[in-house]
């Protein structure tokens, strides 16, 4: 099953830049590159989409169209979430 991970943030977000690469690498290691769709959503360009996801703060992370984190998770939290998905 393909897992779509979306990071919703404002362009130029300093908090996101460093951490996103690390989170993406974790997602690739847990899910495998072939099952991962990673998308960075510019909140200003896709404002309605962000609102429909329920995003109130940034950066937020949605997995398969469902808001899972309303701020950047720690690598451990993110890995745990992905592992939970895997066991479902």
């Amino acid at each position, binding site marked *: 099953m393909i897992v779509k991970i979306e990071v919703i943030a404002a362009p130029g977000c300093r908090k996101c830049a460093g951490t996103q690469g690390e989170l993406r690498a974790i997602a690739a290691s847990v899910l495998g590159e072939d099952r991962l769709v990673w998308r960075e959503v510019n909140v200003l360009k896709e404002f309605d989409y962000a609102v429909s996801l329920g995003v*109130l703060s940034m950066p937020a992370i949605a997995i398969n169209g469902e808001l899972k984190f309303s701020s950047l998770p720690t690598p451990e939290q993110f890995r745990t979430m992905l592992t939970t998905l895997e066991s479902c």
Partner: protein
Amino acid sequence: MHTIGKVAMLAGVSPDTLRYYEKEHLITPASRTNAGYRLYDDQAVRRIRFIKTAQHCGFTLSDIHELLTLKQADSACCEDVRSVAIEKKLRIEHKLRALQAMSRALDELIQGCAGGEATTDNCPILAALENSLHEVSR
């Protein structure tokens, strides 16, 4: 230096509002008289106007405290302020959608009722709300 009454008048707020802002750590008097009365400088007037304008844009006093903290923080940049503004816009949009949903629900209730002199026992709006309550409690 201005007294609380003078600075309140200059900024277009009441003295009680200034005391409340002080309680919320948004503004502090520059000094006090020997008798303990608050004294404010011109910067206070600008700060109060900033607070009022931010409130007009939908920012809460807590948001404004964050904005003022960012304004004074050396490590903060314009991007940080922009993020606060975007998050405020997201919250406003959520509220708007919730209000629109409420408005649509009220439209349905209003359309289902012809009004008139019937007793409230036969009021379709009250009946619909009553039925919804039963559905919720099931």
